[in-house]
């Protein structure tokens, strides 16, 4: 059975790959394209550690078939920083100890970035419900929510 030939853009760069039907976007990102920033915590869409954007929409890469992203724009954690310049979310997360083990951090930063692009000044409740799909077991979420609010402030005043 021949593989699917997919041409897509990932973090703004054109990328082509071959994949089987059963391979998810997460499998291809990690195993074929070496983009291991998206993490597999559950493989069933329940933890959010594999959050990416497909056509600007925040989704779990483990619940998207790689074949579905043909001619779609994909954005992953690897595309959040611009070269060496960290995104305000990344810098504030580091400064405010908003991560510990960090396995959930890529998914949370991709999700939070999507939120701030939709609403530049979200309140605590909106942040918490937006991030409810991103499980974190280390922090208890407090510093993550505060970091998103602080990054939003930085971005609004930038």
């Amino acid at each position, binding site marked *: 059975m021949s593989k699917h030939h997919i041409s897509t853009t990932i973090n703004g760069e054109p990328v082509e790959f071959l994949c089987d039907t059963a391979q998810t976007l997460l499998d291809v990102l990690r195993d074929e394209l070496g983009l291991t920033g998206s993490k597999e915590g559950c493989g069933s869409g329940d933890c959010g550690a594999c959050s990416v954007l*497909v056509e600007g929409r925040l989704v779990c890469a483990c619940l998207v*078939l790689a074949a579905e992203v043909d001619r779609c724009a994909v954005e992953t954690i690897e595309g959040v920083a611009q070269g060496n310049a960290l995104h305000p979310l990344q810098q504030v997360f580091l400064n405010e100890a908003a991560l510990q083990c960090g396995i959930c951090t890529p998914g949370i930063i991709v*999700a939070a970035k999507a939120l701030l692009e939709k609403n530049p000044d979200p309140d605590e409740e909106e942040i918490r419900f937006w991030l409810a799909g991103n499980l974190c077991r280390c922090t208890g979420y407090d510093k993550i929510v505060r970091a998103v609010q602080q990054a939003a402030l930085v971005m609004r005043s930038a």
Partner: protein
Amino acid sequence: MLTYNKPTTVDEAVILLQQPQHAARALAGGTDLLVELRSGRLAAQGIVDLKRIPELRALRAEQDGFRIGAAVSGAELGEHATLKAMWPGVVEAANLIGSTQIQGRASLGGNLCNASPAADSVPALIAAGARCTVAGPGGRREVPVESIVTGPGKTSLVSGEFVVDFVLPAQAARGGDAYLRFIPRTEMDIAVVGVAVNLTLDAAGVCTTARVAVGAVAPTARLVDAAGAALVGTTVDETALNALMAAVRAACAPINDKRGTIEFRTHVAGVLAGRAAKIALDRARSRA
């Protein structure tokens, strides 16, 4: 090897889904189908991705109501102001399906055809009197939403058939709908109990029509006629609400499972029915 096709017309999809030799499954958002695939429980040999068919992606007003493509995502519904204004209950039910990430993909078509007794959007669609267009080898037919699911994981669709879109009627001038569900956490859980209420008032504030549907308390979502009847002719006061709650509890036939007990589901179904009725009542009054 598993095949993958992405037809761009309904007819193409019907042909692909109808081929007997490879049990083909329709893919819209995939948030249920892919979980089945990854856990090795998917028996299909082929996947037919419906998202490239314009009709299934369309969301437009029609004859004062709405026509919603089966592959439109919950997130898109949540961002449609006029739909939300007319049918807040239906939209909040769709938006309760999973996390933001799931909302980016989950569709009304998938939620209905996955045929889970606890599907969040189905009770609200039933209460709203929604119908859906089914395409298949025999052509197209429009049927009430409640006729699709026949049991856990089972639908009335035959090989080659799939849901194209949903038709939401116009909400009455003094109409209001609401959906509530019970989950142990505040997000991410499958509904332990789900209740939808859709009612209309006359000028004097008396309830003239009422549809009450429940989820996760029976093999399929159910329209509870007795519950609707308990509200009609009343001002939806305490007595009517108590009758509504009793009727809903009487209609429950839940099971004990990892999410809830029979006693819990039955009791809470009544509680949520009362609360959802009050919200629907407020919405109906505010629309008057």
